[in-house]
Structure formats: C-alpha cells, structure tokens
C-alpha cells in the first residue's frame, strides 16, 4: 500500500483534476483529415480565377479571402478582410483593413497588399476570370497603412458586393503571370498538388479567425458520379459533390442545395418568327417544365419562370412564368400564322450538352414539345466552344433564327450581374436592342437599396412578359457526406465549400 502525506495527496488530486480538465477541454488545434470527391479539377489555382465553380470550390474561403463576404442565405454584404467601408463620393470607396492578418508566407495584410491584389485582378493582360464581374474600370490605391481607396470610372453602388469576388493573393505573387501556388490569408494553406490527381490543403496555424477543426483536406477528382457516390458509401471520401438523385436514394447524409443556376432559352429576337411576341408566347406555353424537371432532370431542377433565384434583388415574388398549355400554344401559333408571321421558318434549337447532366435529353424533349405546337425545330448539339458563336456578340447577331439553351448563375445578390448581360443592348450575351430597356438598366445600376431592387424587378417582369428569355428550371445540386463529419449545405455550397464549416461528428 502506498502512503501519501497530506501535501502529497493534495498535489496528486490537483494533478488528476488538471489531467481531467485537459482531457475534457475542446481541441485547440485542428486534427484529422478529410477527402473530398470532386467532379472536376480546377482549371487554375490563381486567386484571380476563382470565380468559376471548379476553381472556387477549392480555393475560396479556404486558401484565399476577399475584403467582404456575402451572406449565403440573404446575400447581404458582410465584413471579412475589411472591417468597415464607406463611400466618400459616388465613384470611390474607402475600405478599412482588418488588423493582425497575415498571408501564409508571413507577409502582413495592409493597404498596399490589398491594392496589389485588386489591381492585379484588373490587369486585362492577365485575363483573370473575375475581371468580367466589373463593368467599369476599377483601381485601388493606398489611402493610409490600413485604408485602401477603390475608385471606379462610373458610379458603382454595389462595389462592396462585387469586391467579395476579388480574393487577395500575397504581394509576393507574380504580378503579370498566373500563380500555380496560391498564397492567401484563409484558414488553409495550399500544401500541394498532383496535377490530374489531387490538391491538399492544410490548416494554417496563424489564421486570424476561428481555428478550423479539420487539419487537412485532400481534394480528389472523380469524373464519374457513381464513383463519387461510391466513395462515400465505402468510406473513402467524406464529401462528394454533384451526385445524381438516383445515386443518393436511401442515403441518410444526402443534402440538396440550390445552385442559384437557372436553365433558360434565349429566343433570337432579331429575326422572324421569333421577333413576334405571339410566337415566343406559343413556345413558352408549349414547354412542360414540370415534366422536364421531374422526369428528365431527375429532380435536379425545379420549374421556374425567372432568370434569377430569391437571392437576387431582381426576383419577382410569386411569379412563375407562362403556364404549360399546349392548346393555347397552338392557338397562338395559328393567330401568328393568320397575321402573316413566317411561323413555318425552321428554328434551330442550339443545345449545349455540358450545361448539366442530361442537358441533351432535355433539349430533345423541348424540341418535341415546341414541334407539337406547330413549329419546325431542328436540334444542333454543341459544346461550350461550339455554343459560343451562337451566344456571344457579334457572331450571335448573324446566326440563323434560333433558340439558344443556356444557364445562368448569379450568387452576387444583385441583378446587375444578370439583367444588363442578358437584356441590355450592350450585353455580350444579349440579343435585345431596346432603348427604353437600356435606360431602365442604366437607372437601376445607379440606384441603391429598395429602389434598386424595385428597378430590377420591373425590368425582370418586362422581360418575362415579353418572353425575351424563357426560363425553364432552377438547378439544384446534391451533396453526400460521410458519417464522420458534419456539414450543412447553404446557398453558396455549389460554388464554395468552406472547410472551416466542416466539423467532426461527436
């Protein structure tokens, strides 16, 4: 038997208590690793290219961060690397930089670093993906050590929202060339890449915010959806993206999320018969969106009459678009024909096959539906490159009369990244030439708050009434997670998955 003195006993009890307290305390450092099965490898890992889905899913909010961040539920702008901002005049904004932030290479974040990152993204010779989000020339200058001034050539009331898409790289990043080793301020540093195989991110000890729970994330690319789903079932992966509905049946950890993407048709308005409203209405009435979404899209879409989702300020509450009514479509077709409209002109349905899984079959069904109303429709299947001359000006204006299949994804919260592009006479993807609409778009771009939302709603309603675009389905995504982790999908999951939101399951 061991004899303990009073002081010895006290020390022993204290030590035991300390040991228990230590064991019960939450982990202060990240631990464990997860595997994410992704459908596509990033085409670029440079911070200035991470507005595309494949790039952003790995980098945004993990490796690199921006001055502001949009709320995934409401779309409201919130602080991130900037703590506050103001607009001293209608063409410039002052952003105060968060103190105590360092890049993964140890460089402190200050106004000079922010100005470097923004101006680098705006360099047209670098051809950054994010550049097209800025309709007007935008430059950044150092106002003081921790305040940066961003100046726009034209007033931009939603610049704080737009700047949420400019992720900031370390000032040591090459200024005139793309980087293959991104260095940011995010909770994870870029630990390695095996091209064609994987990317590894490791928790960054010096992160300014709350430390993440997961120490390491390994992204692997699996083009086949069945394999991604199987990897969850076998425990080889913890998160699998873009899973078809049939692969998720019976899976307790399946989560559906809104992608903010909308599948729509764009009528070629410049040529008959699509320059006639009755013809466009006949086409819109002939499409049975509910059947398309339920049967051919395998419930990966829901019928919609709008080009944007509820997240965007141009969303028109309760508007569902022209209902499916084949008899009405036939009547409109006959009415247009009687009025001398060349309704017998063959219409090319330009089917972009890589819009979503099953896009070609959906296009074939749309072709049949429109033909049932009386039209002659020929199908032309194309990939993105083949689609481009049909979609973009100036080539799009000289194409034969056509209905273009397309999709649009806007998670900015603001209609300015949607309506000018598709409805303005200057929009690259627009075939609309309407001076009145242009004036409304210009006025909306300068408005702010509820006035801005109301202006975009009015523009959207006009476009839908005139069938300038024919939205078909709001696209949804499906995610599978393993039993080891907890993750709640949100409004941004489709384009960015923050590893710091992934937790170990208790």
């Amino acid at each position, binding site marked *: 038997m061991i004899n303990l003195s009073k002081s010895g006993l006290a020390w022993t009890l204290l030590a035991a208590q300390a040991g228990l307290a230590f064991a019960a305390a939450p982990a202060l450092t990240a631990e464990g690793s997860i595997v994410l099965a992704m459908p596509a490898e990033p*085409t*670029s890992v440079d911070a200035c290219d991470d*507005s*595309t889905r494949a790039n952003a899913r790995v980098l945004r909010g993990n490796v690199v961060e921006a001055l502001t961040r949009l709320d995934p539920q409401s779309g409201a702008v919130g602080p991130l690397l900037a703590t506050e901002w103001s607009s001293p005049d209608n063409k410039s904004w002052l952003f105060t930089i968060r103190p105590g932030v360092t890049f993964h290479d140890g460089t402190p974040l200050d106004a000079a670093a922010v100005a470097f990152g923004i101006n680098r993204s705006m360099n*047209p*010779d670098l*051809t950054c*993906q994010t*550049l*097209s989000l800025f309709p007007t020339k935008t430059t950044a200058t150092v106002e003081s050590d921790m305040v940066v001034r961003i100046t726009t050539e034209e007033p931009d009331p939603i610049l704080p929202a737009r700047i949420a898409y400019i992720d900031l790289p370390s000032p040591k990043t090459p200024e005139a060339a*793309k980087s*293959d080793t991104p260095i940011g301020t995010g909770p994870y540093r870029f630990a390695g890449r095996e*091209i*064609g*195989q994987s990317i590894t991110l490791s928790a960054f000890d010096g992160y300014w915010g709350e430390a993440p729970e997961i120490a390491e994330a390994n992204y*692997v*690319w*699996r*083009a*086949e959806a*069945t*394999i991604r789903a*199987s*990897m969850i*079932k*076998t425990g*080889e992966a913890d998160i699998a993206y873009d899973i078809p509905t049939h692969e998720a049946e019976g899976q307790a950890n399946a989560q559906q999320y809104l992608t903010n993407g909308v599948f729509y048709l764009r009528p070629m308005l410049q040529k008959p018969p699509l320059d006639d409203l009755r013809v466009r209405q006949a086409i819109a009435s002939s499409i049975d969106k509910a059947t398309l979404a339920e049967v051919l899209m395998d419930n990966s879409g829901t019928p919609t009459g709008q080009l944007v989702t509820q997240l965007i300020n141009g969303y028109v509450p309760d508007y569902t678009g022209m209902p499916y009514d084949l008899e009405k479509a036939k009547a409109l077709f006959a009415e247009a024909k009687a009025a001398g409209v060349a309704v017998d002109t063959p219409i090319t349905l330009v089917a972009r096959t890589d819009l979503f899984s099953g896009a070609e079959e959906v296009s074939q069904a749309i072709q049949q539906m429109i033909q049932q109303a009386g039209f002659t429709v020929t199908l032309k299947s194309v*990939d*993105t*490159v*083949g689609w*481009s*001359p049909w*979609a*973009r000006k100036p080539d799009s204006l000289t194409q034969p009369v056509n209905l273009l299949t397309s999709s649009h994804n806007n998670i900015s919260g603001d209609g300015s990244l949607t309506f000018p*592009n598709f409805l303005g006479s200057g*929009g*690259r*993807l627009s075939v609309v030439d309407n001076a009145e609409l242009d004036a409304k778009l210009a006025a909306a771009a300068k408005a702010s708050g509820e006035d801005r939302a109301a202006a975009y709603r009015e523009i959207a309603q006009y476009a839908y009434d005139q069938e300038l675009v024919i939205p078909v389905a709001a696209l949804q995504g499906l995610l599978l997670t393993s039993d080891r982790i907890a993750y709640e999908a949100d409004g941004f999951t489709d384009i960015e998955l923050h590893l710091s939101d992934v937790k170990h399951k208790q």
Partner: protein
Amino acid sequence: MLKFLSLRLTTSLIALAGVMVIVFFLARLTGSPATLYLPADASVEMMEAFNRQFGYDQPIPQQFAQFVGNVFRLDFGQSLYQQRPAAVAVLSAMPQTILLAAVAMALTLLAAIPLGTVAALHPHSVQDRLITLFSLLTASIPDFWFALVGVLVLSVNLGLLPTSGQASLLSWILPVATLMLHPVGVLTQVVRGAMLETLNAGYVQNARARGYSWKRLAFRHALRNAALPIITVAGDRAGGMVNGAVIVSAVFAWPGIGQVLVDAVYNRDFAVIQAGVFVVGIAVILLNFLVDLIYAAADPRIRIS
C-alpha cells in the same frame, strides 16, 4: 531484316508527321480556347488579350511554322489547362499507362493462351463450349458497364476493393480487369482458331501417329506455328491499351494518357493534343517494332526474308 526495319521506321515517321500536321489543323478548326477559358460575358478586350498571350492571334500558317520549328526541339508549348509544359503533362502520364498496359497484356496472354489451347485440344467438348461462352461474354460486355458494376459489387457491396485511385495494390485489380476484358475474349478465340488449324496440319497428325502426347504437341510444336496470328492480334490490342484506356482513366481516376488526351480535346488544349499524339505515335511505332522482332523470333522464315 535490318533493311526491313529501317524501311518500317521511315514509313512510320512519315505517317506520324502526316498525322501531326492533320491534328494541328483539325484542332484549330474546333474554335478558339478563349471562349472556354474566359467567362461567357468576357469583353472583346479580354478575348484579344488571351489570344495574344497564347499566340492564337497569329495567322494559322505562322502558328504552324512556329509549331514545326518547336517540334524539332521537342518543345510542344505550354498546356493551357494544366499550366505546365505540354510534353511534361503527356510524359508524366505515360509510365502509369505503360505499366498498366504491360500488366494487363501479360495477364491477358497468360489467360488466353491456355484457355484457347485447351479449347482447341478438345473441340466441341463441354470445355470448349464453356471457354467459347466465356470468351464471347468477355468480348461482348461493355467495359464501361463492367467497370461500374465491378465497383458496385466488389467495392460498395462487398468492401473488398477500393473504388478508384492508386492508394494500394488492390486498386490495380479493377482497372486491370477492365482493361483485360475484351482482349482476353478476342485472344482466346484467336488462339483457339490458330491452334485448331495447326493441330489439324499433317505434321501434327504424323507426330501424333508416332506417339507424341497432345500436351507436348500443343505447347512445344503447334503453339509456335500458331503464334503469328496471336502476335498480330495481341500487338493490335496492346496498341489500344497504350493509346486508349479512357474508360479506366475516367472511371478509376487512373492517370493515363487516354484521359489526358480526352481532357485536352474537351479543353481545347492544343499543345497537349499535339504532344499526346506525338508521344502515343512514337509508342505505337516502338510497339510495332517490338511486334516485328517477335515475329522474327517466332518464325525464322521472316528473319531470312
């Protein structure tokens, strides 16, 4: 023989040069990569900057002249998609492709030759019918279906194998089996047919009458004389394994040349398409050389002629 091989090399290189020229121009007919790498609403200035950066703003003949000059230095340019030299992108995929193809072909021969020979030794027997059924089945099953069903049964339901990747030796089983599927079936039938013909030849019957065993006849004498069609078909299938194996790459995420080439076509990565065609072309030429040498080893008449 040397004269034959040098003639073969010359004609192969001319064919490869022709294919390279055709690929260069056909690839550019598919459209500018700018439309793929830039956002749909990218400005004209961005498109022009992109084309300028990668030399697509130059007239096609000028691009071709530059390409030819660079090929002689084995410089195929920079991969747009992988952002590294195209030659490196392609060559890094070759070792895995060749290793997988070598393993799959070796196992294919190890399976097909005994199966075909046994079937030929007992024509129209139960063994022959079973082997024929097996070979027809394997030659007919779609490899994509086989790969996915293999994953669902062996990985998901039974938990015996990993679904994909290259984490362990076990991850080789499904890719190798998928790659072997069609060649095993076809080669078994070829071996059976060639062996049947040889076993019915007069010298075999004569040897049989002298008391030689079927086993000794088949594996010592007949197989060597039946080798030429087997080598021809095996060489053809090996070429397919080297330049293809797209299914294996796509389903099992195997980093092979097939997937690199398919990705390059989808991504309008002209430099990688050109480097890939060149490297695969060289590999196929070398493989044909190997087949010619094996022909000569198998049949002395070819060496002499």
